[in-house]
């Protein structure tokens, strides 16, 4: 999967599953996930589960850094890096 398709998949998942209804219309891949409060304890787990299940990437502890979760694009870039480094 390319970074572009990862970005699209992650943006769609976050918008549909995690973003509050009143913010959905203006949500895109550069919307701030942390400043908007989109990611909290539960939604971060849901997002990590989606990445593991649908994108086949396990995010190691060192990468679960707020800097990698600033927006959907940064999450996709992290996933792309991890996928590229994976022996599979």
């Amino acid at each position: 999967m390319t970074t572009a398709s990862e970005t699209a998949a992650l943006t769609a998942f976050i918008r549909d599953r995690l973003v509050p209804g009143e913010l959905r219309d203006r949500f895109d891949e550069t919307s701030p996930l942390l400043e908007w409060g989109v990611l909290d304890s539960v939604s971060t787990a849901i997002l990590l589960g989606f990445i593991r299940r649908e994108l086949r990437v396990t995010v190691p502890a060192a990468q679960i850094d707020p800097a990698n979760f600033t927006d959907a694009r940064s999450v996709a870039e992290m996933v792309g890096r991890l996928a590229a480094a994976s022996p599979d």
Partner: protein
Amino acid sequence: MGTADLYISGVGTCLPGTVSVEQAVAVGWYPAEQAELHELGGAAVAGDIPAPELALRAARSAMVRSGRSPAELDLLLYASTWQQGPEGWPPHAYLQRHLALDRILATQLRQGCNGMFAALELAAGYLRAEPGRRAALLVAADNYGTPLADRWRMGQSYIAGDAGSALVLDTEPGFARLLSVCSASVSAAEEMHRAAEPLFPPGITEGRALDFAAHTERYRQRAVGDGTGTGVLVTVHQRLAEVIDRSLAEAGIAMDDVTRVAVMNHSRPITEQVCEAALGLPLSKSVWEFGRTIGHCGASDQVLALEHLVVTGELGPGDHLLMLGQGPGVVLSGAVVEIGYLPLWAQEYSAGALIPGNETSA
């Protein structure tokens, strides 16, 4: 901390009867929409049995099962999350008095729902510090059926249950081995459990109720409103992942070796997400089906799970239980227990002769 030289020689619980979610919804204690969302089954309710009495009954059971006499214990640690009795009175003294433990170090631990992990880690160090120390009695107990606590609404994704739990950590071989225990914190998130009220005067002195749901919601609103953001909650997940990695590494096992995992008794969606996201394991590896019936029992969930899995035969010789905890602070802990053999009391339970925790309770 790797702890393969330490064993669990006895475990005991005192688990009262339960009130179902259906009953609670019917009388208006628990919102129907929450019942549908969280899929919880009920909560253990102790009525007017004091928490220290729950602790004492669990401790007696654990001691009988361990085969240790009071004279062979070197430490008593008592973990609790809520009021135990008259303010200023130490509940561990109740156990010292009734179990003849006056000659040993005893103290209370207030680390929220993570308290049993702190007890394990402190006891491991204490037992190793002096040659000749033999065993430590670790207990946890809470009864939330008090004024200023609403078990059905105090948390966003759980119902609070009442229970006592105890285990004997031993330097001599027991039915299980404690392979590792470790902890870490994200203190930047400490406000999450106090955000809805001032630090002074302390809430309890002004009659404010225990309400983690309100604190969490206020914390989130403030983080979004002032632009701080919720990055610290991502860090909590990072720290949890680190604790899991450490627990397994120090135990010398891999995730594939984990037979079951015991986390706090939260809602199905939360437990499912924690299992999948943090562990890559299905919900069926957790103890959720048991936990959903008794509620989140303070610092006792994981010991209750251990006993349940052993007496029901869901854990057997060679199996590994990964226990994960979290408490206000935010503190996160992990521990790995390896089952050595099926103890006699578990065999008796399996044969229908015993009810867990009731062998010695009056």
